[in-house]
């Protein structure tokens, strides 16, 4: 399985090359359009967020967030429509319940709170988007690489799938 870490991130030997890699899950109707409007207005923000466009922030299964971290993301940001603005009426109501739970789980697993953000960004809030990305990138840069695959390797877990069949 391709690890996110192995592509753009620096390694322990060459930390200078390291750039924070943040995965952003953005809803199509508000936040993605908000990010788009930041671009159209030529606002400057760091290129560290890899945006995944989803139809609704209610589609962000917490499993996606865990997967992103497990594969080497340094941060995850989930953006959706403001409560009351959801194109699907109540999709983001599910998001607002799930995200605090995810936050608590990540805290229990020792992942710093600044590495996970959940905000509401409307289609008109390009400036909010660019500020948020700038701030989050700075905070994650301060924290340094998370590199969960290396942690799993260090603890000797997670290599089960790589074993040849039947140990032959």
């Amino acid at each position, binding site marked *: 399985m391709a690890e996110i870490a192995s592509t753009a991130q620096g390694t322990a030997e060459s930390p200078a090359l390291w750039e924070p890699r943040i995965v952003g899950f953005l809803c199509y109707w508000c936040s993605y359009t908000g990010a788009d409007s930041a671009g159209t207005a030529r606002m400057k923000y760091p290129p560290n967020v890899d945006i995944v466009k989803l139809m609704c922030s*209610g589609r962000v*299964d*917490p*499993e996606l*967030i*865990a*997967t992103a*971290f*497990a594969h080497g993301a340094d941060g995850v940001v989930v953006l959706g429509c403001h*409560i009351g603005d959801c194109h699907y009426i109540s999709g983001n*109501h*599910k*998001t*607002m*319940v*799930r995200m*605090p*739970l*995810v936050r*608590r*789980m990540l805290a*229990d*697993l*020792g*992942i710093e709170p600044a590495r996970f953000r959940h905000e509401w960004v409307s289609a008109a809030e390009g400036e909010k988007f660019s500020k948020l990305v700038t701030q989050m990138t700075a905070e994650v840069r301060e924290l340094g690489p*998370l590199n*969960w695959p290396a*942690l*799993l390797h*260090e*603890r*000797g*877990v*997670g*290599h*089960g799938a790589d*074993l*040849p*069949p*039947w*140990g032959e």
Partner: protein
Amino acid sequence: MPSANGKLKVGMYWAASCGGCDISLLEIGPRLLELLQIAEVVFWPCAADFKYANVVGYPDAFIDLCFFNGGVRNSEQEEVARLLRKKSKSLIAYGACASGGGIPALANLKSRDAIFDAAYHHNPSTQNPEGTEPQPLVETPLGELEIPEFYPAVLRLRDVVPVDYELPGCPPQADRVWEAVQAVAGGAVPLRNAGLKVGCTDKTVCDECSREKKQAKIARFKRHHQVRPEPGWCLLEQGLLCMGPATRGGCGALCLKADMPCEGCYGPPPSAEDQATSMMGALGALLDATTEERARELVAEIPDPVGGFARFSLASGYLKVAK
């Protein structure tokens, strides 16, 4: 398939587990006599006096069915797992610990140093003025003493060796065990398989549960020592944290029949890899919250998201350990 005397050779080993799995094999009751008619035990340290040396002496692929219960916490367990893999035609991860890490894998929330610190130094019931810790190799006047190395994390059996079947549950439910044994012994399924889950269904515990769902939203979370649940009504809707929607079926919703919420011992449902996040996904639609503030309040009532939602499956989830 049967060997010289026509009997199936069966082995059972326990690693990092409580011993309940060994007992659960006996739970098949009178069918045990049926099992002993078609099978002979060639290795079962819990029930009979077999040594590792006996197993080493067996030819390769000598054991037909080998049940391995418990996770892999130390080097001895890994060594035996590798040995049994070599000596077995079919290696079955038996129970929640062998297939998903189980309760012992909750220790993955702490590092090895933190565990040693708690167990050997700062435990109120521990007296250890010299600060002794177990060492894999110790020089003594009588020679070197070797004990197994404590691993930095609890692993599933499949993290160490290829596994043919996984039989989840804490412990696996007796009827399901018997069905699985019959299927493998009767040749209905191949001896070798790629860690296929057996002794469980392809649905969730909710699908097996007879409690009525009234489509009520959760207004408050309660713990099961605080309330006497209303009979016949979905426990989750009553505010008791039941893992039913995020747990594989197969047990027949046994706990729910006794008014106890599901704890999730059969591991994640077929549609998910990670049980904890799967449960968070399910809860998203079940809470009675229309404002963010209310959602935060309700979520804060959940005592322990990791320990509660990944109680039996931390080692099989995505993140597996704590930093």
